[in-house]
């Protein structure tokens, strides 16, 4: 889902850079106010973790594989604004250091995976949690459903952006992207749920506090 250079129109890239820049300014300001210098190593290492976790492929069908995104995991662990910063870091380093995702599309990739995946994904998670109840099962269900939805949502938004730029027709890209990712989303959900329940069992203090209360 890392959009390369040349796939989106200039107008869209510029608009996405503006939105992502604004979101980055807001979350950094909040991070600077709320969190002591202790958070710098924590956020930095979490970003490094998401990068490493994205390199672990999981099987999909008969030997094909997908890879983990981690936006909902980061927001459940650290809260939505910190998750946005983590995704911003991961995507920028992937772009500058490893040529993964285009430079002109960086704003858009941060918007898709950081804002839609992390922040909107977190809102979806809270919404489902309010309905599914705060039991252990309800919590796991909310984490899994939000992870699946975040993948489908981000890939569909990605398809819309590519179609809006006139690169490919919507009725080809949207079913292709959303269809493939509806399947990959299951892997994301399974992984996110097992990671969160592992952390909740071993190091509950590491979960974003309000959620840790919700689970107790």
């Amino acid at each position, binding site marked *: 889902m890392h959009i*390369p*250079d*040349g*796939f989106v129109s200039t107008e869209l890239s510029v608009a996405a850079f503006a939105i992502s820049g604004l979101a*980055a300014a807001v979350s*950094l300001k909040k*991070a600077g106010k709320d969190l*002591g*210098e*202790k958070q*710098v*190593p*924590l956020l*930095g*290492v*979490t*970003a*490094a*973790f998401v*990068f*490493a*976790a994205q390199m*672990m492929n*999981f*099987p*999909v*069908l008969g*030997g094909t*594989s997908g890879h*983990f995104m981690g936006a909902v995991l980061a927001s459940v662990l650290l809260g939505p604004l910190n998750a946005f*910063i983590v995704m911003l*870091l*991961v995507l*920028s*380093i992937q772009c*500058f*250091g*490893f*040529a993964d995702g*285009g*430079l*002109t599309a960086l704003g858009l990739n941060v918007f898709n995976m950081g804002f839609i995946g992390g922040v909107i994904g977190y809102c979806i998670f809270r919404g489902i949690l309010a309905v599914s109840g705060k039991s252990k099962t309800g919590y796991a269900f909310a984490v899994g459903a939000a992870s699946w939805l975040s993948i489908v949502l981000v890939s569909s938004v990605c398809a819309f952006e*590519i179609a809006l730029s006139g*690169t*490919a*027709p919507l009725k*080809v*890209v949207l079913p*292709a992207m959303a269809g493939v990712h509806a399947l990959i989303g*299951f*892997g994301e959900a*399974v*992984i*996110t749920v*097992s*990671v969160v329940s*592992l*952390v909740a069992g*071993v190091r509950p203090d*590491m979960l974003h506090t309000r959620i840790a209360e919700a689970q107790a």
Partner: protein
Amino acid sequence: MTSPRAFAAYFSAVVLISIALRAPFSVFLKRLIVVLPFVLFIAASAPFAAREAGEAARPLFGGALLVTDRGIEAFANAALKGALGVCALTALSLSTPFHEMLAGLRWFKVPAILVSLAAFSYRYMFVLVDEASRMKRARDSRGWRGRWIWQSGVVGNMIGSLLLRSLERSERVYSAMLSRGYDGNLPMAELPAPRLTDFIVAVVFFSAIMSARLFLT
């Protein structure tokens, strides 16, 4: 639509840089292979885009597929631009060590906290990637062969342990940094002072690219 001549100019710029860097072409190829599936996946739908527009379409494979000239152009345009972006970023990462890119970001007035976060992540990225590949090797040496999506739980548990190890490592790192006098600011590398040749290369390259952009249409 960028003209073929302009594309040729841009790609020769990348080739020139990589020759100047004495960079092996295999690095560019490796990066391209990673990105290419997505590029082709999306771009491959472009040739069929304009079919409803009532344009003249030419049959492919004995009429099984219909493509238009405009669609092929859109495909080539997106695929080439994607490849060019990968090559340019690869040239950047080969020519500039990451800490110098960070110092450059500071020069562009990117907030200090973001730059120290990036420095941190980049430092630990390789440690954690090594950790992840050790875990993968351990798993595979026990005979695991995942083929289906319901086997993903194994990967979930691996990523979970990786996370716990990462978080504990971040606590140890933080204590170690505190005991060495960390006060919330990471010391940043100073950029070397620009020399005359830097300016000359920058001006020549920029004007060459801009004239390709403006005149090769």
